[in-house]
């Protein structure tokens, strides 16, 4: 059956490659009175063309694009404007094809552009001061304020022969269709070097990088599904019990189980690299992503109660992760925020600019740390009691965390759990940053402050609630205060360690101050973190479980107010 399907898959992809993807066919309606123009328009399948004289038909409002008497007009809607723009591209391809065939290439293409990129520091400071406006000059003269380096006068001649250029022009995709354009990104494509005609000077198109996400992430997602199911299956038919009774420890079993999937994922990714003709360097940023997917698969497989829950959890996880990986890489080459995603490194590698070791550390550190954390948590809980119980998801996660703690040293455990939770908290917060940084400034900051406060308070409460449920008699008033202090200490230590280690680029900015309470002396954030934990702990002691949600909200409000006052001063 599998073989039949694989053959069917091959045939299907062959068929699809032959006929192209018909997703946007005929989305724009066009009308023209000129047969030759109709032929040009019909080159692009997004148009459905009517050949008639619009003056005789009357109402041209029903069409998105009207070409009459050698003049193109857009229809009266946003769709009409989009159609006109699509036609501009199609027309450019048409003229390009005509000109490339000219015998005197430099009469057809009299202007060549040599693009030089100048390095400039772009960081969050630019966003703060409104980078869009920064290049607008108020005065009449522009003069550099810093030192001026001598720039050699560029040569006025092209270093390439006309025939080489013609070949490159012909190789440029003459089709604006989505598929060929994306395929062109992977094949050798038009290698025009630095010389371009004006129409080839395209500004970076953000969603081109979308394709890297799909090509590299989806196989990983499917494979991690199998890993997830293999774990879940052992739980439903209780085969896992036999494994657990062998002398192999949980870590050995987990590593053994995950190894084939890891190798399979590496294999698939390598195959994609081979097919796309890329460099194997792109595997470097993929490895932490693969490991993170596997760790998450293990956790989901160990926590889901039923197949339904497994499906929903895995869909939720993959959507969130795809967004985390995808959003930042949209801004590859555009904004430093893009480096949060390892996929950006792949985009950069394919784009030819490569990445440095510092970029690698910055983009992947959270993935390595989170993977280690989740794996450790799963290893601690890979036992009969946890695997075969039928608790609800939230209480199961709570007992997972509690069993990772030491019963005899609950406060020391609180410090450790909170310090260790930092990579995951940072991941969530960076996600907010990615989602919100391009909103207008006061709103992005406000939303970030609120969401970050809520996330941090929720994360800190997990350790407290695990201890509270795990050792019911422990929480005397004195111990509540100690637990809050331990939580605050653990959070602060983890936060500062990780921040100093890697995220200096973000933390130096006002966004960093908002997200990681990096403003003020060390004792101030310590008090803040402890206060939040204290509110939650006290509320649990007084009001029990029902007080949990209001307590989190209150703690988040206090946290947000603290940040607002500090940032308000900083702004």
């Amino acid at each position, binding site marked *: 059956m599998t073989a039949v399907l694989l053959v069917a898959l091959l045939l299907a992809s062959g068929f699809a490659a032959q006929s192209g993807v018909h997703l946007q066919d005929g989305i724009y309606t066009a009308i023209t009175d000129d047969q030759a123009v109709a032929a040009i328009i019909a080159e692009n399948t997004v148009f459905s063309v009517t050949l008639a004289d619009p003056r005789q038909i009357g109402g041209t409002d029903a069409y998105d694009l009207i070409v009459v008497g050698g003049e193109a007009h857009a229809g009266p809607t946003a769709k009409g*404007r989009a159609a006109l723009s699509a036609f501009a591209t199609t027309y450019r391809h048409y003229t390009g094809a005509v000109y490339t065939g000219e015998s005197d290439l430099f009469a057809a293409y009299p202007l060549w552009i040599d693009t*030089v990129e100048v390095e400039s520091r772009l960081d969050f400071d630019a966003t703060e001061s409104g980078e869009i406006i920064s290049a607008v000059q108020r005065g009449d003269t522009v003069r550099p304020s810093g030192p001026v380096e001598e720039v050699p006068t560029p040569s006025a001649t092209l270093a390439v022969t006309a025939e080489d250029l013609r070949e490159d022009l012909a190789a440029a995709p003459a089709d604006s269709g*989505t598929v060929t354009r994306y395929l062109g990104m992977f094949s050798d494509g038009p290698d025009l070097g630095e010389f371009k005609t004006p129409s080839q000077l395209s500004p970076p198109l953000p969603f081109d990088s979308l394709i890297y996400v799909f090509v590299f992430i989806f196989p990983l997602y499917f494979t991690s599904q199998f890993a997830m199911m293999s774990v879940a299956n052992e739980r439903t038919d209780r085969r896992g019990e036999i494994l657990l009774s062998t002398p192999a420890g949980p870590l050995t079993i987990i590593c053994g189980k995950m190894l084939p999937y890891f190798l399979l994922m590496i294999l698939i990714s390598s195959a994609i690299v081979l097919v796309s003709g890329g460099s194997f360097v792109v595997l470097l940023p993929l490895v932490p992503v693969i490991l993170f997917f596997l760790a998450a698969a293990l956790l989901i497989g160990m926590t889901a109660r039923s197949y339904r829950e497994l499906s929903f959890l895995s869909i939720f996880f993959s959507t969130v992760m795809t967004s985390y990986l995808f959003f930042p890489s949209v801004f590859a080459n555009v904004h430093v925020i893009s480096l949060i995603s390892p996929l950006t490194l792949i985009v950069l590698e394919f784009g030819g600019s490569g990445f440095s070791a510092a970029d690698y550390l910055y983009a992947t550190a959270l993935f390595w740390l989170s993977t280690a954390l989740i794996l450790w948590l799963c290893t601690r809980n890979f036992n009969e009691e946890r695997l075969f119980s039928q608790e609800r998801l939230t209480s199961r996660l709570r007992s997972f965390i509690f069993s990772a703690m030491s019963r005899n040293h609950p406060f020391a455990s609180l410090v450790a759990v909170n310090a260790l939770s930092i990579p995951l908290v940072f991941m969530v917060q960076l996600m907010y940053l990615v989602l919100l940084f391009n909103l207008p400034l006061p709103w992005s900051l406000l939303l970030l402050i609120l969401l970050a406060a809520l996330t941090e308070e929720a994360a800190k409460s997990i350790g407290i609630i695990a201890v509270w449920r795990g050792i019911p008699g422990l929480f005397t008033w004195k111990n509540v205060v100690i637990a809050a202090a331990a939580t605050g200490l653990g959070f602060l230590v983890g936060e500062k360690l990780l921040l100093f280690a890697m995220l200096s680029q973000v933390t130096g900015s006002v966004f960093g101050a908002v997200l990681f309470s990096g403003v003020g002396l060390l004792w101030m954030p310590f008090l803040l973190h402890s206060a939040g934990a204290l509110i939650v702990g006290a509320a649990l002691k007084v009001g029990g479980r029902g007080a949990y949600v209001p307590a989190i909200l209150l703690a988040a409000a206090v946290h947000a107010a603290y940040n607002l006052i500090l940032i308000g001063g900083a702004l």
Partner: protein
Amino acid sequence: MNARHILTIARKELRGIRNERTIVLAILLQVFIAMFSSFLVVGLTTLYDPSSLGGLAGGYAVGYAGADSPLDGLLEEKGFSVHHMDLSDAVASLSERKLAAAVWVPDTPPDAAEPVKITLYTVKNDISASVTGTRIREALETYEGMLRDTRSDRLDVLPIEVAIPSGSGGQGFFIFIYGLLVPLLLFMPAIISASLIIDFITEEYSARTLETLLSTPLTFSEILWGKVFAAWVLVPVQAGAWLILLAINGITIANVVPVLLHVAVASLALILIGAIAALHYRERTSAQFIYSTALVAVLLVVLSVPGNPVNLVVLLAAGTAVPAGWTGLLVVGGGATLLALFTERYARRIARTTTP
């Protein structure tokens, strides 16, 4: 077959989903996607449609070095303030972000045999490069046209001329929303539901609860259709929720009822494929694997046929008139009916062989 029995099973499955609170995840997911589309609206509009930015009114500065040429005036026309300056100063100002770009123009005569080679300096990794890039390109293209006119007596063939009004941006955004995002969102519930039906069916086998169910007055095919119905009913609900979320984000979808109809009919076909895989394997891993592989093959084939359901949904959502829309719906509906008949027969055969 008893409709009440079918509804009982459907209710049981839906209750299961509700009890596990997994539906909370589904709602979170929808909120997430809502953020996703607002992100696109804000972020991508900024990138694609520079005029949407208020700060542009004053005009970007461009450094100009080298010989005089009409490019100077063309850049001014595009709203740039052009500063004639020394090349080294221009590049230094550029790296300090006092300029959006700098050009160096050689003194090649317009009618020379060689091309005119202009050097364009831009800032690396800069969001404003995307904003200004389009206008700089337009200025350069106009200049290219002027040079081409000067040299036109050396050309063999001239292309047909069509005058296109300049400054027509936004196509990428429109096509991204309607041509990619909308079909992705609308068909995602269908794909989710098809993998849900596999869970519904295989779970009965792996938890060995099927015998218990069959000892009640329910027949095997009633159980099956109840599950199919539960999975199917979720599709229009979720797709409708996407449509509302998109509308809140300012993306209006035309022809809502026909769009939902197309999605519902196509999703029934997908769900039945999932059900057949689950009935055949009775075990989740294999069934999901076969279903996923089959899904890719089916999608590839469907997408390569002009006028496929996804294409029709795109056209309908974008408000394009679709004369063949109902025919397309009938074809897909016919396919789904055939699949349904096959599923029913298969279920009966299984029931005969497994029940005493």
